[in-house]
Structures are given as structure tokens and as C-alpha cells.
């Protein structure tokens, strides 16, 4: 698999930069050759209606003010741009800054888009919200947004993801959402998207589909980017206020909503390298990872309503992906990022599962910051390249989410015996219907 060293984009040609500048937003749904609205006519009308409503409300001062207040008081914006002194010293190169999107209410950047779209749906007169979710963070954010705004919420989630992200399932249900396990296909994120599309085709009169990533048919890539670009706008302002000289911004890329969110304000600035970290999984072979831009496994294709780069076979059948991080475990990438990658404006690297786990450990121990497994791919990428930069330059890591939700994945890795004992004891306690105060104490 190609490393960053092989895909240096520092000497971006002027024509490539001009191309990148033309990719800041879509041209009628397309980012160069990627994007579009490749959907059956049955789902065309809700997309067209949504596009019209979005274009109207995104210019409406009342809507924007309502959104701003929710962002401030409910999400907790702006999120901090944290200087990481120990990481900077240990990595021995650029200053390391971490954009703490994980401090946003519900624990990840996903809430930026969920609130934006749910508020828009409410303006459109919709009463029911559906969403797909992989890691569960988007489902969680949507469930919370619906609870806050008084909307009914149904979340489709692949059976595999329901299993590996159980804490998020439990929390979504606490927010009053109905979580529907999807048992078709590979039972992961892409299958949840299919199921949500089906629901929407039948129920769009009352229902809005809150797509969680900057992908899918137009206008979703534009809508999601618009609501997420507040991340990059804040970084730009925070850096200017504190005279931080940004040399690179690193973000993880599943579908790409946090990365496009943090990159957008910097696309036209050639002095800032934009680096996307994909899931390298357990190895470079097709099926062992979810790398669409790194390596040559992905093909230009049309799947789930948009044209982009996909992990499909020669016939066009989607291929299984693999990553320790449910949020990056997806065969496609947002069309805008695919276009920005093709013209060299955004560089891509891939991070193995074990490197992502090491990064979780590194930032937890040295900075007291717990990265989500998705975001730790960005952390790991920054750790690899920090030395390439002088000490007066800064690398911004977008910590798109925090890692509380991953405790069922990280704990079995970092402390397997204690975790096993805990689970066994907890199961026994629940089966015996014992109060925690009366239960047998572990490791006595």
C-alpha cells in the first residue's frame, strides 16, 4: 500500500490548484466527474424537494440564527483547538494541535450535520426522521437531535455493527429512537443505507432521510459538507487568533464527512496540506481494508446513488471491507473527496488497525485525550508525518469523535483478562438479579 512519502502533493501544480478551487462545491451535483444523482425515479422527487428546501433555508437568516444558537448552546460550539505539548515533544517535529470535535454533544462531529438536517426537515414539515449508522455516532446524533426537536426517529444499523457498537445502540434507545438491525447483505453500513433508501422511497411524504456522510446522491454531499464545514471555519479562526501556522490538517476518511468538514476552509490555500487517513484494516489485499484512494483496489463506479471510487469487483459487485473502526468500514468515499484526491489536492494514506490502536493509547497516556477508533486513524497518520515538518509549523488533527463508545473493542485488546472477568461477572450478576452492591467483587 502506498505511503504518504510516495504521494507527496506539496508541489501542487497551478492547474491542479485551479481544479481544486472549482471543487469547493458541486456543479449541479457533480464534483468534476464524481457525484450525481444516480437514483431510480422513485427516489428522485424527495431529493429534488430536499435540494430546493436546502437552497432556500441555507440563505434564510432566521434559519441560520436558530441553527447558530443550537450549535452554541446544545452542541457546545466552538469546540477547542487543543495544543498537545507532550505529543509535540515526543514526535519531535511540527506542533501538534487537536481539534476536539469529540467534545461536541453526543461525542462526535456527527451532531453538526444531524442537527442541521433535522432542523431543515422540521422546516419542510416532516415529522419522521430516518438515518443509517455504522459506528453508531451518526445514529446517536440523529436520535439526540430528534429528541431535542420533537421528531420521530428510526435508525437502520447493520447487524454486525449493532453487535460491535452496543453502547451506542443502548444510548440511541435512551433518546427514544427505534434501532432496526439490518440483516441483509454484509450487514454493515452499506446495507443500512440500502434499507434507509427503501424506507424513504415509501415514506418521503412524512419522512426525511438524514444521510450521515458527505456521500450518496446529490444534494447530500453538498448538504453534509455545508453543515460540517463549521469545523474548518473554527480551526481557521482559532489558528488566526493564536498565530498558529498550519502546515497540514489530518482527518480520517470513511465516507468523509469530518474530513471534508475540516478541509473545506483550506482547499484554496496551497500552503496547507490536506491529508485523509483511510482504514488499512489488517492488510493490503481486497477485503482486508477499506482503502479506496490508497492502492489500486478501488474502481470508479456508480453505487448507492453516486459516482465515486468504490471497492467493487470487475462486475461492479460491492466487496466486503474490513476495519476495526465501524465508522470507516465502508466501500465508497464521498464524491468531493474522490475528486479532490484525483487532482492531488487531498493526499491519502492508510492506517492499519494496530496503528490506530497504538494512537488511541499514545494520546490517552500522553495527553489525556481519548480518540475514537475512527479518529485515531488521523492521529496515527499525524504521528507518522510530524517529523517531516519544522517546529514552527503546526499539524491539526481532527479528533472527529471520542473513544468512550469503543471500550468494548479497546478493552479486550489492552486488558483482555480483566475485561473477560468483568463481562463474566456482570452476566452472572444480571442472571442472578443481584444488586451491584451485593455482587461478588472481582479480583478480590
Amino acid at each position, binding site marked *: 500500500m502506498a505511503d504518504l512519502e510516495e504521494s507527496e502533493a506539496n508541489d501542487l501544480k497551478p492547474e491542479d490548484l485551479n481544479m481544486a478551487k472549482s471543487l469547493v462545491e458541486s456543479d449541479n451535483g457533480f464534483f468534476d466527474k464524481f457525484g*450525481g*444523482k*444516480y*437514483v*431510480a*425515479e*422513485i*427516489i*428522485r*422527487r*424527495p431529493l*429534488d424537494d430536499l435540494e430546493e428546501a436546502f437552497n432556500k433555508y441555507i440563505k434564510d437568516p432566521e434559519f441560520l440564527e436558530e441553527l447558530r444558537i443550537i450549535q452554541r448552546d446544545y452542541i457546545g460550539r466552538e469546540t477547542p483547538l487543543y495544543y498537545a505539548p507532550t505529543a509535540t515533544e515526543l514526535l519531535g517535529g511540527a506542533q501538534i494541535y487537536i481539534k476536539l470535535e469529540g467534545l461536541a454533544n453526543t461525542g462526535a462531529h456527527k451532531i453538526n450535520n444531524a442537527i442541521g438536517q433535522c432542523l431543515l426537515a422540521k422546516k419542510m414539515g416532516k415529522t419522521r426522521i430516518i438515518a443509517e449508522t455504522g459506528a453508531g455516532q451518526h445514529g446517536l446524533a440523529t436520535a439526540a437531535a430528534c429528541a431535542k426537536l420533537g421528531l420521530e426517529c428510526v435508525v437502520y444499523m447493520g447487524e454486525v455493527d449493532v453487535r460491535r457498537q452496543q453502547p451506542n445502540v443502548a444510548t440511541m434507545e435512551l433518546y427514544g429512537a427505534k434501532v432496526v438491525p439490518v440483516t*441483509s*447483505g454484509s450487514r454493515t453500513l*452499506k*446495507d443500512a*443505507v*440500502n434499507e434507509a*433508501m*427503501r424506507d424513504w*422511497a415509501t415514506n*418521503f411524504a412524512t419522512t426525511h432521510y438524514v444521510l450521515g456522510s458527505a456521500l450518496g446522491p446529490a444534494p447530500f454531499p453538498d448538504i453534509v459538507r455545508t453543515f460540517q464545514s463549521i469545523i474548518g471555519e473554527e480551526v481557521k479562526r482559532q489558528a488566526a487568533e493564536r498565530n498558529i501556522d498550519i502546515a497540514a490538517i489530518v482527518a480520517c476518511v470513511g465516507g468523509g464527512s469530518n474530513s471534508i468538514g475540516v478541509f473545506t476552509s483550506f482547499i484554496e490555500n496551497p500552503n496547507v496540506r490536506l491529508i485523509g487517513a483511510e482504514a488499512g484494516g489488517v492488510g493490503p489485499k481486497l477485503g482486508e481494508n477499506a482503502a479506496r484512494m490508497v492502492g489500486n483496489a478501488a*474502481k470508479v*463506479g*456508480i*453505487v*448507492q*446513488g453516486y*459516482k465515486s471510487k*468504490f471497492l*467493487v*469487483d*470487475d*462486475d*461492479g*459487485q*460491492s466487496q466486503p471491507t474490513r476495519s476495526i473502526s465501524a465508522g470507516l468500514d465502508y466501500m465508497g468515499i464521498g464524491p468531493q473527496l474522490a475528486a479532490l484526491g484525483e487532482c492531488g489536492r487531498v493526499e491519502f494514506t492508510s492506517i492499519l488497525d494496530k496503528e490506530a490502536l497504538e494512537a488511541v493509547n499514545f494520546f490517552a497516556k500522553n495527553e489525556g485525550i481519548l480518540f475514537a477508533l475512527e479518529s485515531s486513524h488521523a492521529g496515527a497518520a499525524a504521528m507518522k508525518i510530524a517529523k517531516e515538518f519544522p517546529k514552527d509549523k503546526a499539524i491539526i488533527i481532527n479528533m472527529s469523535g471520542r473513544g468512550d463508545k469503543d471500550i468494548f473493542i479497546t478493552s479486550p485488546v489492552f486488558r483482555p483478562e480483566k475485561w473477560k472477568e468483568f463481562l463474566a461477572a456482570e452476566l452472572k450478576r444480571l442472571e442472578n438479579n443481584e444488586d451491584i452492591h451485593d455482587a461478588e467483587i472481582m479480583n478480590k
Partner: protein
Amino acid sequence: MNAPITLMSHLIAGFPDGETSIAIADALVKGGASILEIQLAFSDPSADGPAIQTASTVALEKGYSTKQGLEIVKKIHDMHPDIPIYIMTYGSLAFTPGVENFVKMCKDAGVSACIIPDLPFDNDEGLTAACAKYGMENIPVAAPSMTQARLEEMASKGFKYIYAALRAGTTGSQTVIDQATLDFLDTVGKGGAKVLGGFGIRTGEQSKVLCKHVHAVVAGSVFVNIMLEDPKNIAGVEAKARELSGL
């Protein structure tokens, strides 16, 4: 064998297995089907319901992707050369090998038309042109939720056939086709296209009511469901086709 109702009936190449799907095609023709709509299984059939998704997964697990699916189609075509075969699938399977290559592969298997709902008629990646080049038809799929303007645009493009995915129109035991549906069908056919119409047809009665308003009645998941329940029930498929075609 001329059935009173022109029935376009659907099957998935390779479901429940290769041989049985050929037997299903045979049963459908014996039951009076005039056109066979054969679906090439795709991993992410988001425009289909759960029955067809499940059946597609089975076909793919048995190895029936494009090439193997079209081998089945070829065998069916050789058995019934007078029955037109329309391929239904998704854009990914046409676009990935190249739309023209895909159409040529279909042509070589004896296919006479393509139905690919996620390649929209106004951005079809060259599907209509490729079909024309090989003497085939591209059949777009119209939906009642389309705006009048878009529907009229589709109708005016000179397509020989348009597939109309109707809204379910049954109330109680009576099948009624409401005025909105009739208006929709009128618009679809306005430019001279022959309309293939379906809305989850289950019974002969529904078929009889609908056939007066369309060129062909489309029935799909009803057959897939019979096979999902009992993968050996070929006789059930034939009997259902007979009921729907009025043979």
C-alpha cells in the same frame, strides 16, 4: 400460446440456483408469460424490496454475477427464442465493465432490452445510445412521484417502452385503479411509448383490471416469493403465471 393478458414476468438469474432459474423461466412461459424480465443479481439492490434482495444474495452466493447470469439468459433464450428477454439490473453492473461492453454482452445472450432504474434517462452514461447501436431498447422506469414536467420529458424522449412502477392501488378485496394512476399512465404513454405497468400484482383479478390500461402487466416479487417459500415449487410458479395471464 396466446394468453389473453400480455404478462411480463420476472425472475432472477441464478435464484434459487442456475438450473432451477431456467426451469422457472420455462414455467413462466408455459403459464402464458409473453415477456421475461430477468434480473442480474446485484449486491446492493436499493430499488428492490426485501424479497428480491434476499433472492439476489442467494444468487450471488451461488456465483451468479454478470457473466454466469447471462449464460443462464442465453440458455433460456435458446429454449424460447420467440419470447423477448429484458434484463433488469443496477447501474454498477453496467458502468463498471463499460456500458457499451455490458450492452454487447447482453445482446450476445439474446437480450432485447435493458431496464436499469438508477441510470436516469437524462444522465444514462450512454445506455440508450449503446442499446440503439445493438438493436436493443433502453426501458426507463417512471414513478408516480415524478413531477409532471419530468414525466413529460421522459415520455417525449422517444422510448419504445416505459416501465411504470405504479403505486399499490388495492382497497379491500376490490382492485381499483384510481384517477391519479390513470392520469399517470396517460402521461407516460403520451409520447407513444408502450407502457409496462406493475404495482406488486398478486392476483388474476388485479391483472385483469390493470391490463386494460397498459401494454403489458408486470409481475415480479410474487414469483420470487413463491420460490423463497419453497424452492421446488415450480408448479406454483406456472399456476400463478397462468392466473395472471388469464391463460
